[in-house]
């Protein structure tokens, strides 16, 4: 392989690994947005909880698979509680008000975690070792393959869930028209609850997958949440395909930008691209074109 091509491949691997994580977080945003039209700015805290709780359980001597299951379950409980206690009572509030409620929830969850689990950085062990794999001259970590594999698996499962199960279809119906869904007998408030649970699950999984690479910390969710939101918007809010494409694209812009242009400005480049896309496609790449009712 010629050197420039290997280099490109290396940037590509790096980009899709970060991108897959952004995609998972973005999917979490999309799920909740679809069911409730709420943007959950505490999504990053689900990511953080996944990693931190897994670490906490591991440090208590619990096996990794069990610790992961425990962390996912606990994060889902937090997601359900958030919907039940904070979002549902404020259902009729303004968009901005709901944004601030979820931001408050994020601050609260970070505070709670720092008080109970401490403020240290923690590493999780990689799922299958730290021996890099060589692929066409470029290298990739086994953990990256885990990230890509699990993300792909989740995408397939979600696709099946939304297209082939009654519950999934109910969620889709609710996202299209809440009143109509209620009229055909869908329990809308259950659907909302479910969407928060699922979204917490996605967040927790993302947090657990990436913790062996980046280490976890009570504030690790802030930036990942923000990037996930950016990815969700880039792809088009509430669109599953959009969230995935948006996430991967964001990861690639960052790594190619850092590799070929300037590592100093790679984050700024990502936002410039998003602004550029929005200027020409005001609903993101795959977003539904909204019509405003008068």
């Amino acid at each position, binding site marked *: 392989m010629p*050197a420039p091509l290997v*280099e490109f491949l*290396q*940037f590509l*691997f*790096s*980009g899709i*690994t*970060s991108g897959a*994580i952004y995609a998972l977080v973005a999917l979490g945003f999309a799920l909740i947005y679809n069911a409730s039209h709420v943007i959950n700015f505490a999504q990053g805290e689900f990511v953080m909880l996944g990693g931190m709780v897994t670490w906490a359980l591991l440090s208590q001597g619990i096996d990794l698979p069990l610790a992961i299951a425990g962390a996912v379950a606990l994060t889902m409980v937090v997601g359900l509680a958030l919907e039940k206690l904070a979002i549902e009572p404020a259902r009729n509030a303004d968009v901005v008000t709901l944004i601030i409620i979820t931001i408050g929830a994020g601050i609260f969850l970070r505070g709670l975690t*720092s008080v109970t689990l401490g*403020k*240290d*950085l923690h*590493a999780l062990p990689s799922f299958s070792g*730290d021996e*890099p794999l060589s692929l066409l001259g470029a*290298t990739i*970590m086994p953990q990256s393959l885990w990230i890509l594999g699990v993300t792909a698996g989740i995408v397939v499962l979600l696709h099946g869930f939304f297209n082939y199960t009654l519950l999934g279809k109910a969620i889709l119906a609710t996202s299209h028209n809440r009143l109509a869904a209620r009229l055909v007998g869908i329990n809308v408030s259950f659907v909302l609850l479910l969407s928060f649970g699922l979204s917490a699950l996605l967040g927790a999984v993302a947090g657990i997958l*990436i913790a062996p*690479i*980046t*280490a976890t*910390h009570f*504030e*690790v969710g*802030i*930036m*990942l949440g923000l990037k996930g939101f950016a990815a969700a918007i880039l792809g088009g809010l509430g669109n599953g395909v959009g969230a995935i494409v948006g996430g991967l694209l964001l990861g690639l812009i*960052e*790594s*190619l930008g*850092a*590799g070929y242009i300037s*590592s*100093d400005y*790679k*984050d700024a480049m990502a936002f410039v691209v998003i602004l550029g896309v929005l200027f020409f496609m005001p609903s993101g790449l795959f977003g539904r074109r909204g019509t405003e009712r008068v």
Partner: protein
Amino acid sequence: MMTRFTKGLMLAGVALVALGLTAPAPSPAQAQEDPIRIGSFLAVTGPASFLGDPELKTLEMYIERINQAGGLLGRELELVHYDTGADANKARTFAKRLLESDEVDVILGGSTTGTTMAVIPLVERAEVPFISFAGGVSIIDPVKPWVFKTPHTDRMACGKIFEDMQGRGISKVALISGTGGFGKSMRGQCLEVAPDYGIEIVADETYAPSDTDMVAQLTKIKNTEGVEAVVNPGFGQGPAIVTKNFAQIGMAVPLYQSHGVASKKFIELAGDAAEGVRLPAAALLVAEKLPDGDPQRPIVVGYKSTYEAVHGEGSVSTFGGHAYDGLMLYKAAVEAAGSADPAAVRDALEATRGFIGTAGEVTMSADDHLGLDLTAFRMLEIRDGDWVLVN
């Protein structure tokens, strides 16, 4: 038709009362029996929490110990601390609160260079001694009358690293630095002192402190002609990721980290990839490995065992050590001055000679408010998951 503004007024009133409550009117001249008030503002949360957290724990622990031993000049020490979250604006308001409302006798703290720099104008005007725990050389260069600091500067870290490189015959170096205050400042210092050591910087990459992957930057460095070593100024999880990515893409040149990762945590986070990494750090990290005759040995072993007895095996870091040094320097200065009077303590601090702390031997003067030299830094290498002294 009393509308919203009336309510607004009432709310404003409530808020003001609340503000008044937090700051009771200052009492007249403090009696000698009153406690000595030590003010502190640290980044206990936020991106620099791994600095602020051990610093606060150290201050709390040792102030309690001093009080149990009868206090300082027979007076109790009282700690007033506020968390800045590494936000310079918060630091400034809290410093004002410490100076104006809490009326502290000294300020120890400022985990980061940014928060420290923001309060310097305030302490200079208030004429209260201020000992910072932050690394930036700009804190004490140029010298400000009331400002001191305990950690080695980033300029010294660069010097120590380049000195070591000279010994290994390395002259072409790549930098990959964090864009946070610490990384950015140290990068600047390294670029500045590199020519003094005959070092040429051939690649200069950066990453954001919250980045999750630095493979792209390292690949670029790997493909740069003639790189003989890589230096990574930065702190937090960034350097651990750099170290892992460095190993992943199979780079074989030596990797140097900075004193910003001088804790066991770094080895834990970077795992096997940390093998062979070198960094300049205070003697504290190799406390038990110091030769018996080393004057620092009793101090660093004492601090390490005291800290780890409370916070667990392997929890000690040089960051907590900076706070220890700051508190002990202040204690020594008060004892030397025979009072906690700010001006007297300032003069005593400036007259510090041969003080042994965790960072090294401190000898201050009117134009050196740090008092450490390059010998205070030790070059360490990570071998078998532990620090080893390099000679």
